[in-house]
């Protein structure tokens, strides 16, 4: 009984971690659906968004080190703090500006190129953004606090203690992350399915020429999609940043999103969610049940092995579009 209750707690925690994975994976799916590009920079985008948010919130002077070393000044902070809501809005605006610049400076010049070329461009973009984030806001680990509740949820602990005689330990931040992710996904699905811009987005993903012929501007759609991806990155950045501090290893969570995508399928928004949850729960449960038998530390590789199995047996993922090749 004890073992079972404990497993249930591990399961719940896995779900919550999965939500975090799904948040990052969502950004990948959005851009992949709209432009057929695997955006390697999505993880860095989340990092950059979080850095920008902290920087704005704490009134940091952007490019402070650069300015100081050139002009011999000692700037660091403006000396004000920006309210959370305003800071988030400003960070969002920065992400939209970034989307516009990416389209203008990179994508526009690569129209009609092979997907692999665009993929390489996003790798370049990832390292550029990482460097830019460093130069703009500094490389030290920062605390991000946007007022989301943190720490153990006492109500869940006491309720579960009453029912099972064992108090579940669940972080309130994780619960909030799950709620926000659910809202975000609902909004995105509604957007893609029911709005004019959503239809146009799906059209562009499918065929550029045909999209042009019905009056869809590719540039507008690309800026829009990268803005949305930037916004999703901002949300993911806030969640991860609050959880473990804003640091450059944040961009590595993008790697965990890869197996999530292979499971869920690169083209499916629900797939990204399901994939995230499966990986999150899977790696925790595997660690719990099998881990002790084989020496632990399975969380490092479990997701990738699972993804490998999917690549062999179901390359389109759980929800991805079937790959139909007509001969």
């Amino acid at each position, binding site marked *: 009984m004890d073992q079972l209750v404990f497993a249930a707690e591990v399961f719940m925690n896995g779900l919550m971690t999965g939500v975090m994975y799904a948040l990052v994976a969502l950004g990948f799916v959005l851009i992949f659906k709209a432009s057929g590009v695997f955006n390697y920079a999505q993880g860095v985008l989340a990092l950059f968004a979080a850095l920008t948010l902290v920087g704005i919130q704490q009134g940091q002077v952007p490019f402070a080190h650069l300015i100081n070393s050139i002009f011999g000044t000692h700037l660091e902070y403006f000396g004000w703090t920006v309210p959370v809501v305003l800071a988030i809005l400003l960070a969002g605006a920065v992400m939209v500006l970034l989307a516009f610049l990416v389209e203008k400076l990179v994508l526009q010049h690569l129209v009609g190129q092979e997907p692999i070329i665009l993929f390489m461009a996003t790798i370049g973009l990832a390292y550029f953004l990482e460097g830019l984030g460093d130069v703009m806001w500094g490389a030290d680990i920062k605390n991000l606090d946007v007022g989301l509740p943190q720490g153990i949820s006492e109500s869940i602990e006491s309720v579960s203690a009453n029912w099972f005689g064992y108090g579940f330990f669940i972080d309130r931040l994780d619960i909030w992350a799950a709620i926000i992710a659910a809202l975000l996904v609902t909004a995105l699905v509604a*957007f893609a399915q029911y709005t004019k811009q959503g239809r146009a987005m*799906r059209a562009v993903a499918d*065929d550029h020429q045909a999209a042009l012929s019905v009056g869809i*501007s590719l540039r507008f759609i690309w800026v829009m999609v990268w803005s949305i991806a930037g916004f999703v990155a901002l949300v993911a950045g806030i969640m991860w940043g609050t959880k473990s501090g804003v640091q450059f290893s944040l961009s590595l969570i993008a790697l965990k999103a890869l197996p999530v995508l292979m499971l869920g399928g690169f083209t499916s928004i629900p797939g990204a969610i399901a994939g995230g949850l499966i990986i999150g729960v899977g790696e925790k449960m595997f660690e719990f049940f099998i881990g002790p038998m084989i020496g632990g530390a399975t969380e490092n590789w479990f997701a990738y092995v699972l993804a490998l199995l999917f690549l062999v047996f179901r390359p389109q993922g759980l929800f991805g579009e079937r790959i139909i090749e007509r001969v």
Partner: protein
Amino acid sequence: MNTQTDIAIADRQLGGTLMELRNITLRFGGVEAIKNISFDIREGEIRAIIGPNGAGKSSMLNVISGFYVPQEGEVWFRGERRGPVKPYEVARLGIARTFQNIALFDGMSVLDNIMTGRLHRMKAGFLSQALWWGPAEREEIENRAQVERIIDFLEIQNIRKTPVGRLPYGLKKRVELARALAAEPQLLLLDEPMAGMNVEEKEDMSRFVLDVNDEFGTTIALIEHDMGVVMDLSDRVVVMDYGRKIGDGSPDEVRNNQEVIDAYLGVAHD
């Protein structure tokens, strides 16, 4: 059937000039795909562009729809000179087109594909669209009704929900026409609408083209290889060969033009 359409065409009054192309020259590197060509398209007519392979017909259509920008010459539409425009802007001006190698959204259903034709006509803000309230709902219903009319018109009711990728070739062509029609264009460009079709499919498509012209009053410019079809359908014909215009006039005039016979019909006929 033939005699009936002949009479119908003879009776028709052609409107004023809708589009005029003046001295268009289009080059790809050193190759001149179109050499100094001028012709007009009048309101309400079916205008055919014919010629042997590689004559520059598709290039001409791409110039009209803004996919290619000619190095020289002027494009006049509705009495105004058109500047350098992007293809999507041309579409918004009321010129819809189909492609020689069908360009549909394979992942979407037939209905969704046709709906994309109306995207640029939708005005409601995206918040109200996503939440499905007020003006957005009314707009969606209106647009759906119009799309359903076109679906009925082209007799594709039974495949409305089918993903386009699964359809056979002939039906894909018809869906592409439906999407172009959904935009309620003033000028409809058809790039080889009957290529690769069997006789029965060709007859269906010819009937649709005539009906579209007749019922919606849509001006149509089309490229076609099948001479019989072209002569039956069109009011006036432009003949191209090696990027030059070698004939222009009614089907009968073109048929009797010696240069045209030499270049094209002479080979194809008897």
